[in-house]
């Protein structure tokens, strides 16, 4: 469980995020909200929490979450960039790595694809598309390697 405290209009608010097996729970000042991932492959959330004049954004990738208060993340101190503004290229790479990995190397390929997808999204959020493409190439090479290993074991 991750907790943050935000001060808005002289009142301290508490925001908690908890990732359970199948669901995500956001708790704001004791009120629980069940939220679902916006991506079919990985757990991805971008929720805006507004306390009057103070705007917060809870961004979760996988199990890790960070809260941005008025545009600045409390954890990484980086500027908040809406996940929706991310380049479509990143989502294409995520899809190819996950579905392609599954077709090529089965569940192991899918697992590698999903794990590497978190890296693409992290780089995509930082607008580092070159690094995301490099990760994609590394992921594809790993999946091809697994494919040949599985093939040699079968023969």
């Amino acid at each position: 469980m991750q907790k943050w405290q935000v001060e808005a209009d002289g009142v301290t608010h508490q925001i908690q995020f908890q990732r359970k097996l199948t669901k995500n729970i956001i708790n704001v000042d004791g009120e629980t909200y069940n939220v679902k991932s916006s991506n079919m492959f990985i757990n991805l959330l971008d929720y805006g929490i507004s306390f009057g004049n103070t705007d917060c954004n809870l961004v979760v990738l996988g199990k890790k979450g960070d809260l941005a208060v008025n545009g600045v993340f409390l954890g990484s101190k980086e500027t908040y960039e809406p996940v929706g503004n991310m380049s479509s290229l990143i989502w294409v790479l995520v899809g190819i790595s996950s579905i392609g990995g599954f077709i090529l190397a089965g569940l192991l390929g899918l697992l590698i694809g999903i794990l590497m997808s978190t890296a693409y999204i992290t780089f995509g959020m930082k607008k580092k598309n070159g690094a995301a493409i490099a990760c994609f190439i590394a992921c594809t090479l790993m999946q091809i390697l697994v494919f040949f290993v599985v093939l040699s074991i079968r023969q």
Partner: protein
Amino acid sequence: MNFDDKNIIEKSNKVIITNQLDGKSNNPSIISLVLGIISILFCWAYICSIITGIIGVITGCISLTKKRGSSNMAITGIVLSIVGFLFNLVFLFIFIITLFMD
């Protein structure tokens, strides 16, 4: 209930939670493009591209008709899906012929 709790409850009524990714979905066009690329890449693999090609065309058409996401991406997805589908048919045809010849 102490004063702090009261404060939190009063303020919590003003809390507005919104999904920033909702309503901006361009998923169908992206899925169509992804499946189109996969149908091209895996056109050698038995009936894989036939399945991905058909789904790619369907999602691309959904994206175009419902105007969800980039139309360029959806059109590219549809074209790649059809090409992958056709390549897969050719490979399947060759595979069946070689099977009968043996």
